[in-house]
């Protein structure tokens, strides 16, 4: 019998009880969340469990929800069970004022660069990361560009008409 989303959910609730929540299945992809302090416990359980075997970290990224107070930043782990070919998404939410999340780089080596990228663009502080510094943007950059409070456009341009290029104020 191959692994199903319902069985994964059952195993997780069996192990973590009410701590894991927000289960949903979008286009057949199981997604759930846990408190950020538990992210490593959940990832380790998904990795070690003989039935679940989520041993491949496909992607790690963050999402900024500026209106969700206290849960502004979501760190999303995409995991893959290569034996049963099942994927899932696991999210932890954190306050943007103190975006500390434990690093997954001890468990998945591939998380090293992906966490650096997430730090680079969203400013998530991965506690215990061996080399948490910018990876894609210039070292001198003093903000986290993919947070929603920053405009996309380069702010050093002065020769473009703001109204025509959607920078700064609203179009009248």
């Amino acid at each position, binding site marked *: 019998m191959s692994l199903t989303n319902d069985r994964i959910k059952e195993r997780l609730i069996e192990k973590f009880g009410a701590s894991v929540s927000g289960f949903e299945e979008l286009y057949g992809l199981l997604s759930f969340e846990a408190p950020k302090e538990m992210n490593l416990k959940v990832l380790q359980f998904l990795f070690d469990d003989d039935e679940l075997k989520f041993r491949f970290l496909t992607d790690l990224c963050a999402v900024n929800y500026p209106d969700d107070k206290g849960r502004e930043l979501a760190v999303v782990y995409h995991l893959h069970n290569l034996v049963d070919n099942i994927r899932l998404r696991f999210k932890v939410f954190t306050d943007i004022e103190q975006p500390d999340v434990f690093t997954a780089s001890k468990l998945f080596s591939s998380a090293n660069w992906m966490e650096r990228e997430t730090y680079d663009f969203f400013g998530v502080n991965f506690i215990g990361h061996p080399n948490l510094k910018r990876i894609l*943007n210039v070292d001198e950059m003093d903000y986290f560009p993919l947070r929603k409070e920053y405009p996309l*456009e*380069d*702010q*050093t*341009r002065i020769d*473009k008409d703001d109204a025509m290029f959607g920078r700064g104020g609203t179009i009248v």
Partner: protein
Amino acid sequence: MRPVRFNIHPKEAKLETAVSMAEAPNGYSGEGFFTAKLSDVVGLARKNSLWPLPFATSCCGIEFMATAAAHYDLARFGAERMAFTPRQCDLMMVMGTISKKMAPVVKQVYMQMAEPRWVIAVGACASSGGIFDTYSVLQGIDQVVPVDVYVPGCPPRPEAILDGFMRIQDLVANESIRRRNSEQYKALMESYGIE
């Protein structure tokens, strides 16, 4: 009859029409001598033997490959000698989006070139950032190095690149040999923080 070359051209090729010669500069000639301005002669020599340094980062670079290949043939202008070391080159051709992280590299390559040196910005991205009006992209390479000719287009056709190249040739031919020692030139370099 197949339209082969000798059906429409004489069999005896006239060498003087087949070879493209650079025109002699204005001057006085007599029996056994020719006088002209030194800057004209130097300009003539320089403009017909520019060594380009292709700094190609994206699609404009592909257009440049076509420009340098047989059909458009940049070699007709004496520029067949691409070099990938800046120390030997006269003309840096920046083609493609330059991200802010790449900007110091562009500047360093420029600084490694020996004087006299020219820069051509090919395409919208190198000239102004193009469609990439975003935090990570340099909004025109003229923020880090002085640019002589801008070629518009996204990407420009090889003809446009050739046109830009010929404008560089005009600049090279007409440049005063004292320009690079002038106060204005020094001030320009200082404004970019070079030397």
